[in-house]
């Protein structure tokens, strides 16, 4: 250290900062309008796809350049909120349905109705209605849905054949699932009938299947007879029927891995796993709309692109939102790269046909049929905490630390306290 000339130490970090600042300035000077875009897409294949979208967008809109940044889902909302707190939010960003409510209710988003009315590319009929409605609040449209995905029952046809059980179809109910799972399960050889995560997402849906449902307004409804029945269905598969591996039996091996290894007859999972199964499963498999209890109910996940109300480049931002939501190249790219699906109205069958034409799984139609039964989760101001509370209680029930009744009673009490805050 002390052999060096005095000046080298303190100046080098400063020089580096200066260089970074200069590089940034040059970047800004060369484009007329820059739209900052924040996304929770982090997979490298998806990022390649995103860059391909940006390239096409920029060639069609030479006056705009897109500067994107990503954060994984775990840290995404913290980053976004601190960006708002610090007064430099991105111009356009991605929001899922649950967190959309928080941002819309706090007045941080730009209303898009005028832009939409003036648009030649999109209108009310472009999108799947439930997806479009999900991103409106008090009659104001704040976001355009850019993707949707659903959850299905995926099954290993070979294990079904071996057990002599008929494949699942639309008429199946919970009882059929348990009967089939029971026939398939061979626990000593580490083969189980089904894996269905016991967590918030599965629970709100199963609750709806039972004829109940989670609600937080006007009153908290968690501990209800129907919901108890739903949670019993989830945990009894482990604790009573023994057709689903417990945490200890899974031993840190994920359910996706178990399925690909041929150790699971059925798995409840999302359409985003299709490509992984196509590449890695060396057995025949197919999908079905999820069986219900008293009712049928399925997940509906949708993400939107929204514009911050502080943006100074509203027009360019809107064009990017529009492009992300419905541009033919986007729709095509999403199908090609298996990057979820554009949330287009089912009338746009032409655009979605390439998706249905793919050979595996054969019953791709189930992806769209599931939309008929879609239910959405309850949403509160502090969504992550709501989900954590419910997940903790569900985990206690899953591990057998609490009875189903006790877990739901505790969840009810804790969520009431959360809502009262």
């Amino acid at each position, binding site marked *: 250290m002390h052999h060096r000339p005095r000046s080298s130490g303190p100046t080098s970090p400063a020089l580096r900062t200066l260089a970074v600042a200069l590089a940034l300035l040059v970047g800004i000077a060369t484009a007329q309008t820059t739209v900052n875009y924040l996304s929770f897409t982090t997979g490298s294949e998806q990022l390649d796809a995103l860059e391909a979208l940006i390239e096409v967008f920029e060639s069609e809109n030479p006056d705009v350049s897109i500067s994107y940044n990503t954060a994984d889902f775990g840290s995404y909302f913290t980053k976004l909120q601190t960006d708002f707190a610090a007064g430099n939010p991105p111009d356009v960003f991605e929001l899922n349905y649950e967190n959309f409510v928080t941002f819309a209710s*706090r007045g941080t988003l730009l209303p898009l109705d005028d832009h939409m009315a003036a648009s030649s590319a999109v209108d009310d009929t472009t999108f799947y209605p439930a997806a479009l409605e999900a991103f409106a609040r008090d009659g104001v449209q704040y976001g355009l849905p850019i993707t949707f995905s659903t959850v299905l029952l995926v099954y290993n046809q070979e294990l079904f054949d071996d057990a002599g059980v008929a494949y699942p179809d639309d008429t199946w109910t919970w009882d059929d699932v348990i009967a089939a799972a029971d026939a398939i399960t061979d626990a000593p050889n580490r083969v189980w009938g089904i894996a269905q995560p016991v967590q918030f997402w599965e629970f709100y849906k199963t609750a709806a299947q039972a004829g109940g449902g989670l609600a937080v307004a006007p009153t908290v409804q968690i501990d209800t007879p129907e919901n108890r029945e739903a949670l019993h269905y989830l945990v009894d598969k482990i604790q009573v029927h023994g057709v689903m591996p417990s945490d*200890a039996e899974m031993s840190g091996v994920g359910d996706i891995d178990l399925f690909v290894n041929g150790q699971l007859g059925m798995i409840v999972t999302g359409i985003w796993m299709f490509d992984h199964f196509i590449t890695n499963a060396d057995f025949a498999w197919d999908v079905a709309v999820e069986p219900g209890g008293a009712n049928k109910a399925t997940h509906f996940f949708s993400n939107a692109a929204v514009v911050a109300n502080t943006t100074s480049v509203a027009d360019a931002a809107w064009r990017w939102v529009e492009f992300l939501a419905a541009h033919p190249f986007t729709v095509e790219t999403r199908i090609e790269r298996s990057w979820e699906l554009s949330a287009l109205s089912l009338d746009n069958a032409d655009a979605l046909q390439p998706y249905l034409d793919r050979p595996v799984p054969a019953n791709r139609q189930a992806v769209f049929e599931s939309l008929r039964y879609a239910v959405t989760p309850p949403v509160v101001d502090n969504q*992550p905490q709501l989900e954590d509370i419910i997940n*903790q209680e569900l985990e206690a029930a899953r591990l057998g630390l609490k009875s189903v009744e006790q877990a739901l009673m505790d969840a009810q009490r804790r969520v009431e306290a959360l809502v009262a805050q």
Partner: protein
Amino acid sequence: MYERGWRRYAILALFLGPSLIGMLVFTVGPIVASFGLSFTNWDLLRPPRLVGASNYAAMMTDAEFWRTLRNTLTFLVGYIPLVITSGLLVAVLLNTRIPGMQIFRAMYFLPVVTSWVAVALIWRWLFNPVYGLVNNLLGAIGISGPAWLFDPNWAMPAVILTSVWKDTGFVMVILLAGLQGIPREYYEASSIDGANFVQRLRFITIPLLAPALVFALSISLINSFQVFDQVYVMTEGGPAGATMVLVERIVRNAFSYSRMGYASAMSWVLFALIFATSLTFYALKRWRS
């Protein structure tokens, strides 16, 4: 100081200025801000709202907070005696005149310099109930091991064991330095008197090692109140909240729930615990001397 007049201030500014500004912006400022924030509700999207001491009051009735506190203390009660004992044992063994001791010392110290994330990942895999080495070794001697990180009763012991494994070398190095300060003659004299290993440990080593032991103990205590990395990587506070600890909850409240005020209040409770511990040790030192 040689300089006079304005030069004097220039020299002072040069030497102390950078550090002072940095400390103000990155340490003292945040400390003051954190204390202030603990009396507000702030979700980052809307301006902070003053709420008096209600965050502290809410903590008193928050079952999750008490659970967190209890878990942190469980960690401490399991970890401290084990790490001090194993560190002392290794230090005494290594304080022998055998060539190549430095290699052994390095061996025990390796986990200390390895990042917590790497260590936690390795031990997560070792503790795997079915495929992990721990349960397979236990199985080889006829013991059916628990599900460790997947079992609410065994997750905390697993985290404690991992922490003891990582920090034994740290305690050992501090105690070894202390041991080497004990004059050799004491041992020579005692072996002439026919004292055995245990007697010498009890009557010479431990009393003369007291300052080093207290030092190792106080640092280990203060660190264990702040346990985070291993919990975050190994269990994320699970299963079913069995390993939720203070810092993990502070980070979660601040950065997942956007409850900046509540997280700050919790962090001041953590500070109070550490402060009380330091004070106790300080008083103990004064009282002894």
